[in-house]
């Protein structure tokens, strides 16, 4: 391959390849997250969810996509046509651009920027223009109110979430995604466990930043029809939709990288080998898991009601089997390849766990009122995040000056932050009640 | 020396009722009725125990030294002032509790009878609203009354005096939703104010003349001041104090409130308006007997007023039909007896009658309450009759009390009444005659009451007839106990002539004689004993006559009373309407006070408001108008002139200062261009 491509372009080839893969795969992934969401919701509400298209509705996303793309494209008469056209593009572009710095595994990264994290934050913070301009360009009150709410919400929660991330940056001492993961390996603990409050604040902040329940006020259907997307339909609407789910994956990726150890395997420092081979016990886990899923699908296949569904189910089983083969085969590949493939597996597993938490929260909590949302952001999360950051600073001093362990040094910080959290919650309760009483 | 416990803690006796009163009045609303009962009656019972303890510890002291004071704290610190005779004196008053035989007897009566009436009330008031309020007031009354009798000086006594007055007002108006009740409360309060004014003046005069308000210092002060018998100052003090006593104890002319006070609940009538509070006047006169003994004219006034009141009230009592009104006038009458006793110098007899009266009159009221209770609130005797079989316990106890008040041998009333009459006979036959006649009337109207209520034919309404029932145990037990006391009460001072030893009189003598040992009345010699026996027999005869008369009129010939009333039409009407005294007072005082109010109102409206306030307002408006003109044209004008001048001078500057930010920025740019040009110019020269 080396002799086919001029050497000056060589360093750009792999990143471009990755970029193409991401752009191609992401819509599909988003569609399947939607399916996952509907299925999880159905499960939590004791229903079945989509069952018709494909076995267990597995082909539903594709049907949805086809429907969206075939819909008539409507631009409102009084809309600002340029902006109306431009806004969804901004959203989706910024969402996709952020992937360029995300490290899916030790090998899968478009660009290892030394300001990687800041880059992702910067790019994803530009996504707001898609929402705001789209809401404004629609020339509709619902859209404009949704856009304004979105702007206020994003600005407020970006601060809190950013402060939550800073606690990790202090511990890792780097902005590069790779270095942050490496730091977690070196310190022997995922930062989500050593700074649980940073993780908590980022979790809440990231839900708010992706406009998901219980913070989905910009698109609260009971108040604003569909918020900033009210006037959008068809393909443009699906762009917004794609951007939203791409953003979910982004924040999940950031959280995974910063708090959940990125592509690290659980027990990354445990190196017991299977006797007689160079393979570690824990490395065999992914292959066995996917194999189990494949077998389960195969077992389900005969019970499907329609023939086509049986076939698709078998295909799913075959797909899983293939993945299992790849994962198993990687065990015998050179370490770099092995780590790349398994890292990607673990990374995606964590990302989906985080997204599952999103869904869980969405179907558990009722929607906030706007003033409650603002109070939570400014009066609870930001002070808490500040205390947490200061505490982490103290912990680092303790570690450097008194040689405390990486986990022990953070325990006082966590306790102090917990105390402040309780204080803030207690302090806020009467105010909240008074305001509710005055407001209603 | 080890001070006896109960004497040392004498101040606790009023404190217990105060505590429960506070609890009742602040938190009582939330308490269950039985808790209220236990707390209130319990606290009075504890006070009674302490009183008994104090009494016995006092008795245990030697005869002449039965006196003890306990200073709780200084109230009015020593204030120097000049007395009337120019001597310098210190005005001192403390919360100082005093116990001597007199106050010992009083606290026993107050707490003992008070406890029984509390117990009675738990039954009587069980179904009334404001249960806690009633007991709160009642306990507050107990506190005030105990303060009154335990006080060591006039000031503290006045506190109790006013306290009982307040509680009396509150309790008379207990059914405040009834206009008659609240009116009666106000009447009692206002009439008492007249008496209290006299009492207060008496206190002032006492402190100015004698230089002290402490009771135990009055005797030495009298001695030191070398006052003679009949000293006009002392007479004035005594008369003023008697005005107070007359107000509190319902003597002519201030008796009018007491009959109306029957609007209150019956236990209140029993406790406050029969047994304790109304006797405060008698107690006070006795307490200050040292002054009275040096003022014979005042004593005569007291005796006369007492005797006339006794007769006067008795005549009214004869024709009343309301069972409680009869008892009320009877009370006024008996109080008259007590004052008669005091007036003739038989203070001990007065106090003794006070005690026995507390027993039997308390019993009468309670029994009357029991009757009323049985008849579902009926008070008119014309609608009673033939109840003796239906409510036997009430009947028998009431009969005992009636016998006692009538003075039948050997009930309590016999002893005390005859003691008074005997003393009066020694002093003045006229007074004795009035008292003697009154005793007969008392027997008559009391038996009239009994006969109308319990005997003859039933005149009870049909509605009520079905509900007649004997009262609950809580009411009957106090009746029985008081009945017992009414029977044996006289024994504590059984006359020597009948083989007794007059214990009670001797016990009290130190108090009465404390002022001037030398002036103690000598004990009656054997020569007067024959007379005493004769007097007793005479009065017994009259009493029996009165009873028979009542029997004849109200059992035998029931149609006769109406005929007699018709025959004596004018007089009957006069008496039936209580001699029109209330109407007289209305015409003389109440309406005149209203006229005065109207006149003052007119004065306020037309003179103070019209001329004063409105005139001042007009003047102010006028001045402010002038000031406004000055401000507008002179002050403002000069300021405006200055502003105008500045405005004219600033015209050229304002052309540049147009308030537009962009034109200012333009000037910045112009300045920048200028600076840069100058810079280039300099650089050009530097190069060349």
């Amino acid at each position, binding site marked *: 391959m080396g002799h086919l491509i001029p050497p000056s372009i060589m360093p750009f080839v792999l990143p471009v390849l990755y970029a193409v893969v991401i752009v191609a795969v992401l819509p599909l992934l988003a569609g399947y997250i939607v399916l996952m969401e509907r299925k999880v919701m159905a499960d939590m509400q004791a229903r079945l969810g989509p069952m018709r298209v494909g076995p267990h509705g597995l082909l539903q996303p594709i049907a949805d996509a086809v429907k969206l793309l075939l819909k008539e494209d409507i631009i409102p008469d009084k809309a600002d046509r340029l902006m109306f056209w431009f806004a969804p593009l901004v959203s989706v572009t910024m969402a996709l651009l952020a992937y360029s710095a995300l490290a899916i595994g030790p090998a899968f990264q478009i660009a290892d920027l030394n300001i990687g994290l800041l880059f992702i934050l910067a790019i994803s913070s530009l996504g707001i223009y898609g929402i705001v301009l789209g809401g404004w360009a629609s020339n509709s009150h619902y859209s404009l109110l949704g856009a304004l709410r979105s702007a206020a919400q994003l600005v407020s929660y970006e601060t809190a979430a950013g402060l939550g991330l800073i606690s990790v940056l202090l511990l890792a001492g780097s902005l590069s995604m790779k270095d942050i993961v490496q730091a977690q390996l070196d310190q022997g603990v995922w930062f989500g466990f050593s700074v649980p409050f940073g993780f908590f604040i980022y979790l809440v902040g990231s839900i708010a930043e992706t406009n998901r329940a219980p913070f989905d006020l910009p698109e609260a259907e009971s108040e604003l029809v569909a918020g900033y997307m009210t006037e959008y339909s068809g393909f443009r609407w699906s762009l917004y939709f794609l951007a939203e789910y791409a953003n979910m994956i982004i924040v999940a990726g950031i959280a995974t990288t910063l708090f959940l150890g990125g592509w690290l395997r659980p027990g990354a420092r445990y190196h017991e080998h299977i006797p007689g081979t160079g393979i570690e016990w824990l490395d065999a886990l992914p292959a066995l898991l996917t194999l189990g899923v494949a077998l389960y699908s195969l077992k389900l296949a005969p019970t499907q009601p329609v023939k086509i569904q049986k076939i698709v189910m078998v295909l799913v089983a075959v797909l899983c089997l293939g993945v299992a083969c790849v994962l198993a085969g990687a065990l015998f590949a050179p370490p770099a390849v092995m780590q790349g493939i398994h890292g990607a597996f673990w990374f995606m597993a964590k990302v989906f766990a985080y997204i599952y938490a999103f869904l869980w929260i969405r179907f558990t909590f009722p929607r906030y009122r706007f003033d409650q949302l603002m109070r939570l952001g400014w009066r609870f999360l930001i002070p808490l995040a500040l205390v947490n950051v200061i505490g982490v600073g103290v912990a680092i001093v303790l570690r450097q000056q008194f040689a405390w362990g990486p986990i022990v040094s953070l325990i006082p910080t966590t306790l102090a932050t917990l105390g402040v959290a309780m204080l803030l919650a207690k302090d806020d309760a009467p105010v909240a009640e008074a305001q509710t009483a005055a407001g209603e | 020396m080890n001070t006896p416990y109960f004497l040392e803690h004498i101040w606790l006796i009023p404190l217990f009722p105060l505590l429960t009163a506070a609890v009742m009045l602040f938190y009582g609303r939330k308490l269950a009725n039985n808790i209220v009962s236990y707390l209130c009656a319990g606290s009075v019972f504890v006070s009674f125990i302490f009183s008994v303890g104090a009494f016995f510890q006092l008795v245990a002291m030697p005869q002449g030294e039965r006196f003890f004071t306990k200073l709780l704290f200084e109230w009015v610190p020593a204030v120097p002032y000049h007395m009337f005779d120019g001597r310098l004196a210190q005005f001192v008053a403390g919360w100082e509790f005093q116990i001597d035989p007199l106050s010992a007897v009083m606290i026993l009566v107050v707490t003992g009878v008070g406890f029984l009436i509390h117990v009675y009330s738990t039954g009587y008031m069980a179904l009334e609203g404001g249960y806690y309020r009633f007991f709160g007031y009642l306990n507050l009354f107990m506190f005030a009354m105990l303060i009154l009798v335990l006080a060591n000086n006039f000031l503290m006594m006045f506190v109790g005096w006013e306290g009982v007055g307040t509680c009396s007002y509150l309790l008379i108006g207990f059914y405040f939703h009834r206009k008659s009740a609240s009116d009666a409360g106000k009447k009692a309060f206002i009439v008492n104010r007249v008496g209290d004014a006299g009492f207060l003046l008496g206190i002032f005069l006492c402190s100015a003349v004698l230089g002290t308000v402490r009771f135990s210092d009055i005797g030495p002060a009298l001695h030191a001041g070398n006052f003679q018998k009949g000293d006009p100052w002392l007479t004035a003090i005594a008369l003023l104090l008697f005005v107070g006593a007359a107000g509190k104890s319902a003597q002519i002319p201030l008796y009018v409130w007491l009959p109306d006070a029957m609007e209150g609940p019956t236990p209140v009538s029993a406790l406050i308006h029969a047994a304790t509070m109304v006797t405060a006047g008698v107690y006070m006169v006795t307490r200050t007997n040292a002054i009275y003994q040096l003022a014979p004219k005042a004593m005569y006034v007291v005796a006369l007023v007492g005797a006339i009141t006794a007769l006067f009230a008795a005549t009214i009592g004869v024709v009343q039909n309301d069972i409680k009104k009869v008892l009320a006038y009877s009370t006024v009458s008996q109080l008259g007896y007590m004052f008669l006793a005091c007036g003739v110098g038989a203070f001990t007899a007065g106090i003794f009658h006070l005690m026995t009266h507390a027993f039997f009159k308390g019993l009468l009221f309670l029994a009357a309450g029991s009757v009323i209770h049985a008849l579902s609130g009926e008070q008119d005797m014309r609608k009673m009759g033939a109840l003796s079989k239906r409510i036997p316990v009430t009947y028998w106890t009431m009969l005992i009390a009636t016998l006692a008040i009538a003075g039948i041998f050997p009930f309590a009333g016999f002893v005390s009444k005859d003691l008074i009459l005997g003393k009066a006979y020694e002093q003045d036959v006229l007074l004795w005659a009035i008292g003697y006649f009154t005793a007969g009337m008392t027997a008559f109207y009391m038996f009239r009451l009994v006969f109308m209520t319990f005997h003859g034919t039933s005149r009870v309404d049909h509605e009520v007839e079905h509900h007649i029932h004997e009262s609950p145990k809580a009411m009957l037990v106090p009746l029985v106990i008081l009945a017992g006391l009414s029977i044996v009460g006289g024994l504590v001072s059984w006359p020597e002539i009948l083989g007794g030893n007059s214990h009670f009189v001797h016990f009290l003598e130190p108090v009465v004689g404390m002022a001037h040992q030398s002036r103690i009345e000598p004990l009656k010699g054997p020569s007067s004993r024959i007379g005493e026996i004769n007097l007793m027999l005479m009065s017994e005869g009259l009493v029996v006559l009165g009873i028979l008369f009542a029997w004849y009129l109200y059992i035998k010939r029931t149609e006769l009373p109406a005929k007699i009333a018709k025959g004596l039409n004018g007089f009957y009407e006069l008496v039936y309407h209580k001699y029109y005294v209330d109407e007289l007072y209305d015409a003389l005082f109440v309406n005149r006070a209203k006229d005065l109010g109207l006149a003052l109102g007119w004065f306020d409206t037309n003179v103070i408001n019209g001329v004063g306030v409105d005139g001042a307002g007009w003047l102010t408006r006028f001045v402010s108008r002038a000031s406004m003109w000055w401000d507008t044209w002179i002050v403002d004008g000069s300021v405006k002139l200055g502003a105008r001048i500045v405005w004219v001078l600033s015209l050229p500057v304002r052309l540049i200062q*147009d*308030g*537009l*930010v*962009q034109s200012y920025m*333009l000037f910045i*740019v112009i300045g920048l261009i200028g600076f840069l040009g100058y810079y280039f110019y300099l650089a050009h020269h530097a190069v060349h």
Partner: protein
Amino acid sequence: MIPVDDYLFLSLALFTIGVIGVLTRRNVIIMLMSIELILNAVNINLMVFSRMWGTVDGQVFAIFIITDAAAEAAVGLGIILAFFHNRETVLADEMDIMKW
């Protein structure tokens, strides 16, 4: 290698456009945005000279300028909002009295 002059020309162009915007536009918000443009032009200069001398002092000053811009935007927009609530206008030449 791009000469420093090119950056300076760029900076000058942006600066001039900003100055014209501030001086001529009636809308206060556009004026504020023009000021941001001027600050941005300054930042380019600072960055170029920082790069030229190989130190980071210029970048530090640029950070201070951005801080300043943030403060200015916050307060300026707050004033504009308050003014708009009172007067229903955002035109600079209608803001010609000191007090209302």
